[in-house]
């Protein structure tokens, strides 16, 4: 069964005097992330001085730059663990897609992410074209002359009540200003993605650090941190945004930053309760008895074991953020003049009565963005639930 009988099978004796100090390991991930961010900073400088953009044919907004930096961070820190632990990732992935809701929500979320990520390159940004105003979606009709002044599609009906048919040129129809709704939906997905990514990248590290410190260290540290979280929770992020927008002007970037810095409280509480549970577990005790210090224990044993809860908690926060951003832009407190329209703006203009048309007549101008938003939000919520089911380590393998 084993071969420890022969002397040469024994392990070499350890020369304790020769070994001194701790080994220093280069944090490669952090180095790569810093270099990538520096590179991005250079590109930003170049772009802002020349007024161009490396990816788009138009200058990108501040939110977009922050979003790009956050994408770098997510790829640098979020992707390697998934890749190094590939068997576990695929196992969980398979468990997720075996559940019908899991598969559906995963597809919706993938559509959201892909649409927001690459959609703008495929469909461009929304352009106004007044001659194409208020075209109905394909297979739908609308009275010509009263609603659709010009008709790009077939004209039917009678001479007294001509109707305009939708075309595949604008499958989901157009708005009052002739903007294609497919492009607007993609634009809305893009803005929502930016909001989600930036706010999450702000919230998750703060909530994790605070939650782990409070949960593992306990005592006065826990008391102080949690009292602060309580106080912060009493201040609505929306109000903070309104006040700051008054000082610094409305912008989606400000909204997202405010939310990221002010709404991490519930996630921190979740991390804290998970940390408290893990603190009492056998492997933490074993690690302590092997001489690992508190920093090492939190980093190597507590954090990986609570990471799945963090993921579930974060995916639960994202739909809320998207809805709040939509609400803020709906009532006009978001950016003005951005190249990309958010869902809120699209829905607001769809609801507007500026041209005297009742919303039900031009139903597609607001039903389409509302439906798109609802599908995305629902997909994210359900994905959060399904992930919780699949990732619970106390469940079956």
């Amino acid at each position, binding site marked *: *069964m084993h071969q420890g009988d022969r002397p040469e099978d024994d392990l070499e004796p350890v020369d304790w005097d020769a070994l001194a100090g701790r080994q220093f390991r280069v944090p490669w991930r952090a180095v790569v992330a810093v270099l990538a961010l520096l590179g991005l900073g250079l590109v930003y400088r170049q772009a802002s001085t020349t007024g161009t953009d490396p990816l788009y044919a138009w200058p990108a907004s501040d939110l977009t730059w922050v979003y790009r930096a956050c994408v770098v961070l997510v790829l640098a820190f979020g992707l390697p663990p998934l890749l190094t632990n590939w068997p576990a990732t695929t196992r969980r992935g398979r468990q997720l897609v075996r559940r019908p809701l899991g598969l559906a929500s995963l597809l919706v979320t993938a559509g959201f992410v892909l649409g927001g990520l690459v959609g703008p390159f495929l469909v461009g940004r929304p352009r106004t074209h007044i001659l194409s105003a208020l075209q109905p979606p394909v297979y739908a009709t609308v009275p010509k002359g009263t609603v659709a002044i010009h008709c790009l599609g077939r004209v039917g009906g009678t001479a007294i009540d001509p109707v305009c048919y939708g075309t595949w040129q604008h499958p989901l129809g157009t708005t009052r200003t002739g903007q294609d709704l497919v492009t607007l939906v993609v634009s809305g997905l893009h803005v929502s993605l930016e909001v989600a990514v930036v706010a999450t990248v702000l919230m998750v590290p703060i909530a994790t650090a605070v939650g782990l410190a409070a949960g593992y260290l306990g005592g006065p540290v826990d008391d102080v941190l949690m009292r602060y979280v309580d106080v912060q929770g009493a201040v609505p992020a929306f109000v903070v945004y309104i006040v700051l927008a008054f000082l610094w002007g409305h912008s989606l970037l400000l909204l997202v930053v405010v939310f990221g810095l002010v709404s991490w409280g519930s996630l921190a509480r979740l991390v804290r309760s998970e940390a408290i549970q893990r603190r009492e577990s056998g492997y933490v005790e074993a690690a302590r*008895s092997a001489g690992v210090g508190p920093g090492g224990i939190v980093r190597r044993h507590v954090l990986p074991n609570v990471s799945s809860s963090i993921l579930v908690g974060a995916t639960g926060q994202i739909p809320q953020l998207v809805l709040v951003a939509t609400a803020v832009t709906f009532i006009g407190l978001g950016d003005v003049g951005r190249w990309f329209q958010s869902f809120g703006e699209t829905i607001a203009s769809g609801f507007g009565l500026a041209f005297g048309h009742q919303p039900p007549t031009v139903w597609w101008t607001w039903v389409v963005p509302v439906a798109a938003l609802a599908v995305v939000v629902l997909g994210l919520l359900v994905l959060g639930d399904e992930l919780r089911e699949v990732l619970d380590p106390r469940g079956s393998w």
Partner: protein
Amino acid sequence: MALLEVADLSVRFRTDRGTVVALDGVDFSVDRGETVCLVGESGSGKTVCCSSLTRLLPSPPAQVEGAVRFDEEDLLAASERRLRAIRGGRIAHVFQNPQSALDPVYAVGDQLVEAMTIHGVATGTAARRRAVDILDRVGIPDPAARVDDYPHELSGGMTQRVVIAMALAADPDLLVADEPTTALDVTTEAAILDLLAELAAERDLAVLLVTHDLGVVAGIADRVVVLYAGKVMERGTVEAVFDRPAHPYTRALLESLPGADADPRPIGGSLPDPRSPPAGCRFHPRCRYAVDECRDGGQPPMHAVDAAAATAEAVHAASCVHHRDAGGGGDAPVGRELPWLATGQPTAEDAHD
């Protein structure tokens, strides 16, 4: 000088419902290369004793007093940094439940490598090679493949071997094993005990094994320390304690084993309330041989049972009033009160192996 010397170790826990005395003035020692078993019922303070050696008990609720001298260094007075170097590096722990001692999100090899990296033994590929070697040494079949397995993929016996491997990764001098085989089936238990004995012999490793199972004690121990309600009742070499148990509690423990000769006799009553231990000898409420003297005056000091001991550690002593005069000669009037010692008959044979 013994490798580990515990002197007058007391551990108290302050709770809302009173102070719980888990250990009250415990003394024992462990020499290099010897295996000492700490025996006692559940609740006797064995686990608290193990955890307090390297100050693993969280100190605000626990108050630890006394002295724990490891290689002439007082661990109770050492700094936290020094303790972290000693934990794992010189004193290693093996816990009762192997599955919970391993982090479920790491492969087995990673945890071995962590134990080695912390104490500067090896890093990187050298550490991984050494991990495979250690796994082979503790008897894991096909260690090169097993090193990437996760804890839930291993059986109980294999997991405990891995935990032992982790404990040995940094080449410690003392292994503290808290009921390492309680969660395993008998066959695996025998194999694990054999493994521990071999490792102890080949590395001159001192082992402090905590258990409630006297069969385990008989199989592996050089010396025995019997604990009851936070105090030492008897100590001595395993032959002396099993052949001629000096304390009624030890005798009762041996009698409660199922064996060939007689039906097992459980010890009536239960452990005293740790918040208010009985005055006098802790065991007297359950003792068949208790006399008036046992009821007050605190726990009797450890009286030597036979004076002809080779070394200080080999002294067979018991904390019982019936041995109070037995120090000088061998024919003290002990026999009257403790009949089994008078007749000279050995106790239940089944206590051996």
